[in-house]
């Protein structure tokens, strides 16, 4: 056992950090700077990161779940307003279904997985997250597995997260079958990646918002001294820091598990990580708002950008409540009797 990053992985982290620092938003107003965000999108695409899980020509992904998680985490650190996790998940999904088109994924209304539809039209509104594609994949049940299908991604809508897009696929959208099959195992393995990447994003969000909050606590003075010198504030930040470190450890395992464990075990590792990270991120971001005091509750303070991103990353593939429900089912057997 040796859980250290390889030199290549450390280099990837370093270069992603540099790029996110140079091109990521630094103020809330800066989120409206279209020229900057376009440069960021181009840089991410040119770096090849959107293709990390695309087919290497033999059906395998170009890079492991660990590399994809490193980039997701670093982009989370800087609340980078660029499509990454959604695009990588779409590429991984397409690879597993044996298609090479650039697409996105249409998520179920709960956002816990890809949408599964049984008729020729959608019967609920679906959403595509963090993608720029005009086409979104979903599934139609077929025998023991699924058949791939697609719908046009609808218009961009305003989601809670100010850094990643949400598109709405309206009720009654016609479903186009793609004559490609996806096994249950492949779906489970893809969900493992989704859980690992959203967990990694949360780890990044926690680290980023804590950096901002610790700096603020050192600068902001009350009673003539920095508020960060008060133990009441110190202990909030210390708790948050520990939650971030524990999250990093469990998220790392989930990202490794994606390509190294059987699908069900990899997904269980993802659920475990997501349960911990989602709960931790909520506490850490709320702590950040508190440490910033009044200013932390204003639109112009960056802290809510982190909190909002954490809320989407938590719901995407299911938050801590969803994961605990699923894990208790997997580990303890189906619910019988009492509610």
């Amino acid at each position: 056992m040796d859980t250290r990053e390889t030199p290549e992985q450390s280099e990837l982290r370093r270069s992603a950090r540099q790029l996110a620092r140079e091109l990521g938003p630094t103020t809330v107003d800066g989120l409206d700077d279209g020229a900057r965000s376009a440069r960021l999108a181009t840089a991410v695409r040119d770096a090849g990161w959107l293709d990390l899980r695309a087919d290497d020509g033999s059906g395998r992904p170009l890079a492991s779940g660990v590399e994809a998680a490193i980039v997701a985490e670093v982009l989370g650190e800087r609340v980078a307003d660029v499509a990454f996790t959604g695009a990588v998940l779409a590429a991984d999904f397409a690879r597993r279904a044996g298609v090479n088109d650039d697409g996105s994924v249409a998520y179920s209304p709960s956002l816990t997985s890809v949408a599964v539809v049984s008729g020729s039209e959608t019967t609920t509104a679906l959403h595509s997250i963090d993608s720029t594609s005009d086409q979104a994949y979903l599934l139609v049940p077929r025998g023991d597995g699924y058949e791939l299908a697609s719908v046009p991604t609808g218009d961009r809508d305003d989601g809670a997260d100010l850094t990643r897009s949400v598109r709405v696929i309206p009720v009654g959208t016609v479903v186009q079958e793609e004559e490609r099959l996806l096994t249950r195992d492949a779906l489970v393995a893809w969900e493992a990646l989704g859980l690992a990447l959203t967990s990694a994003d949360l780890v990044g969000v926690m680290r980023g918002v804590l950096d901002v909050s610790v700096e603020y606590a050192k600068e902001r003075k009350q009673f003539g001294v920095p508020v960060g010198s008060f133990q009441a504030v110190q202990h909030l930040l210390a708790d948050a820091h520990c939650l971030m470190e524990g999250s990093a450890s469990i998220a790392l395992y989930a990202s490794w598990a994606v390509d190294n464990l059987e699908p069900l075990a990899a997904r269980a590792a993802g659920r475990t990580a997501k349960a911990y990270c989602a709960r931790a991120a909520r506490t850490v971001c709320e702590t950040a708002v508190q440490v910033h005091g009044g200013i932390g509750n204003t639109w112009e303070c960056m802290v809510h950008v982190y909190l909002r991103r954490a809320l989407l990353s938590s719901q995407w593939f299911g938050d801590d409540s969803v994961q605990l429900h699923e894990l208790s089912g997997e580990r303890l057997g189906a619910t019988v009797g009492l509610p």
Partner: protein
Amino acid sequence: MDFRDSPAEAEFRARFRTWLADNNPGLPTSSTDDEYWARQAEWHTALFDAGFFGLSWPTRFGGHDLPTVFDVILDEELATAAAPPRPSLGYLVQGISHHGSDAIQDRFLPGLISGRDRWCQGFSEPDAGSDLASLRTTATRDGDEYVIEGHKVWTSYSDVADWCFLLARTDHDVAKHKGLSAFAVPMDQPAIEQRPLRMINGITTEFGQVLFDGARVPAASMIGEPGEGWRVAMTIVSHEREPGELGYVARYAKTVNELERIVRADPGAFRSDQREAVAWAAVQVEMLRRHVCRRLSERLDGVEHGPGGSIDKLLMTWVEQTVGAAALSVAGAQAVLDSDDTALKVYLYSRAQSVMGGTSQVQKNIVATRILGLPTA
């Protein structure tokens, strides 16, 4: 990056699993039963004799010079087999090896590691808890010996110990942190009085008070130099804070496995919040397990042990207290209808984790000031 066993690690795991199948003593978890403490020496010796104890410590003292990940493997196998955790005394080994002379190391480490000699740790006092440096036990030079006067408390296993790793004041004329020295004090002498303490979960053989009234220790049994006691103590407590060093992951996993067994045996009898309390405890234990892997791997880069131990201690505390809460939840009314209920004992014992080895508040002060760099008031 690989979380899997290397070939050498896999071989070790298989060998230990085989041995454990025939040698699992079937002891209760340490937190709930006096029997564990009574038979811990036997278990220690059995592990040592079979070559499964002191894995990461030097061969010349009875260890095996293996990387610390082997301890993680051992802990995982102990948890899987629902076997008792390995005795935790790595922090004493670290204290002696970092600060003791060659003569001290040769004299004390082999017995400590083999389990032939049993040790306790005499640090805290009734008036010196978090403010350890204000301790008042004195060691006064008298020829080739020091004479000890004072009162130690929260001294685990003092009643069965052969030796006490004692912190005492040897110099009253310097700042409080600078006047302390550490000693290996023989416990078998009439000037030492034992007063066991009963913990809130009822166990009596873990905690004790020790009164020193003119006890004697040879000057040659000082660990480190005169005045080095504070640094010795900091080495020990910082290692005491590490989950990897303590092997507690196995203890928590054992409890969670037991809770899962109880719920699976009668799924209709448990509400969804009880099921989810168990699932959350399992998530926490898994987090700690991977966290320990990550920390031990960092060591391979020579990342030295530092204030990060306080992060690990806080995480470990939260895990233990989450597991304790899950046990209480699953037990429901049973926990209050029977004072011997295991879940009640597990829960009550878990409350000590945020105090022992330095309170959570002290750990948070360390994280805030030494890791986050926040200013001190």
